[in-house]
């Protein structure tokens, strides 16, 4: 069994890569399942050995990629606590919040040679759960949009303000309106525990969406 510390940046980069890849797939799938965008812009792709839906729209894809590119350094340093995909109505009031709570152990211990395949299996379960979340969520009103929020520690926020990871892609502090939801209903979807990362996904849904 190999035990690594968080100072081992290479391993942190690996974990960040895995999580960012997954978050990209998850965001695309959420947009498809919750019908934020028309299903026509999505095409079937393969990830984790299963079919997933991915957008073909270049600007949408670029936006998601830039967002995750900025989140990646936070995940590497374990400064990101939550990554939230917020679906807002026309008035920019959140109707749904897909919350990905991420935590990484301080001492990363690899106890199995099949770690990555096990992680892939767990992520596959997340994808499947997002695919069927329609069963537990109410329909969204038309004209919804989305945004991505990252909950970090204070020090990480200051660092992000100092260092702009991507030019012309600034990060700002989220509004209180976007962060908190009125009368939220918590629906847990999936939880995973592995040697490299722990993550749980739940949805905060507004009781009255219309």
């Amino acid at each position, binding site marked *: 069994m190999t035990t690594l510390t968080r100072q081992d940046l290479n391993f942190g980069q690996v974990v960040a890569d895995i999580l960012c890849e997954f978050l990209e797939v998850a965001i695309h799938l959420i947009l498809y399942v919750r019908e934020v965008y028309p299903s026509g812009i999505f095409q*079937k792709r393969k990830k984790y050995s299963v079919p997933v839906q991915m957008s073909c729209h270049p600007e949408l894809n670029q936006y998601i990629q830039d967002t995750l590119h900025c989140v990646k350094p936070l995940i590497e340093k374990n400064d990101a606590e939550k990554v939230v995909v917020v679906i807002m109505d026309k008035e920019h009031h959140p109707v749904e919040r897909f919350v990905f709570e991420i935590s990484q152990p301080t001492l990363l211990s690899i106890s199995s040679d099949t770690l990555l395949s096990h992680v892939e299996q767990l992520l596959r379960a997340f994808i499947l759960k997002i695919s069927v979340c329609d069963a*537990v969520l109410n329909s969204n009103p038309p004209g919804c949009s989305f945004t991505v929020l990252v909950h970090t520690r204070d020090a990480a926020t200051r660092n992000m303000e100092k260092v702009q990871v991507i030019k012309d892609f600034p990060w700002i502090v989220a509004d209180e309106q976007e962060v908190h939801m009125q009368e939220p209903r918590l629906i847990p979807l999936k939880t995973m525990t592995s040697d490299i990362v722990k993550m749980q996904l739940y949805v905060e849904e507004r009781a009255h969406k219309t």
Partner: protein
Amino acid sequence: MDELYLDNIDEFVNDHDKIVTYKWLSLTLGVHVNTAKQMLYHYLDHKRKESSAQLHATYLVSGKFEDNGQTVRHTINRQDVFRHMFDFRYFNFMLLMFLLLMLLQGHKVSVVKEDQLEDFKSKMSLVVSVHVYSVQKALLKDSGPLYSVDYDAVKDNLKNCTNYPAARVLNVPTVCSVCRYSAIRCAGAVPMSSLELQQARQIHQVPAPEPEHKKPAMNGEANASKPSTKPQKGIMGMFANKAAPKNQDNVKDIKTEQKEDAPVAEAPKSKPAAKANPMMNFFGTQTASECCQQSEQSQYRRACHKSKRVVDSDSEEEKMEKKKRRRIKKPEPDSSDEDVIPDSPQQMKTREPSPSPEKEVEPVSHSPQGNSQKTRKRRRVLKARTFVDDEGCIVTEKCYESESYSETEDDVQATKQASKDPVPAKRPASHKPDEKKSQKKTSANANKGSKQASIMGFFQKK
């Protein structure tokens, strides 16, 4: 049918929000796929009658599809096609061929939503099969989740697929429908019998002993590198520098007898041999070139050693081994002198009258004659040779030499050689004291190495 399965399916669908496919249900509950299909149908029918929470279902439809009077060759999902083909309840090999033929003629297999079922069936000229594919709460937008549901279950069940003859016969390695709950059956395929299984295992085990037999055939460096039966000797030879007065002949005798046992006990000893070989190679490489140069001397030594072996050995090999080991324990400095000093045998030859070498040769010469009538074997004996190198240092090396022996003549040779051995043994004793020390060292090495069965024996001695 037991009604408990309805509660199970209800738990999966409503409580866990799962997509329950017939394949997943079959693997989870351990029932036949056709039974799982019936379960899903009954569950769906039961829930529809209760007018409970809305459920969504998908159906698998197969048949001849015609579009505008033309036969259409089109399949939505290859995996659905193969899975469906192997899940027919009335499936057999001939039917498979029939289905393949139909496929070529426009047979279509599709997974459709419940609301599209009737419309799809109306478009088919011949509906071969219709059954429930999955039941879930959520309204699926595409068939991707259906594949994801079965992926892990199928992957886990892949191990069971190859154990079933139908899979081998049909040569379908990855379709997990070929399992114990599958509808695939082939009367011509039977599992391997225990005899066939043992033969297959023996085939894999046969190559293992071959390298061991090859080792004794090598000379020179191989001799130094192979205490195959007694690797500890080589190792102990490195550490045991004290001259335990041991007849080197006895050591060699023991080693020859051990070699006799080598074919019997080679397997368990091969592992320690592998460990000791590097050590022996270390010593062997130093003197490998000189090993060949000492061949002539070794031949005479063999004769002397052989006589001693004959004296000490009995008919049974085990007793010989014990005696050899005993000889190792009892120091006999006089007998070891001959083996340590390479020059002594030569001097023996020069001083002794001619009959003595002849006599030494006689047992060897007689032995082949005698062996023509009786069983004669050749064996490799670990012998230690001491010689003076160019720098004037006394070097002791151990190497394996092949010699012929006969079990029946050992006694005779032992008696003959026993009378001769004391004479040559005494003479070297009168020579160089340094050589005696080296003799003791080598004998000690040989003694300790030959008698030790394990490294722990080294510590026990001390």
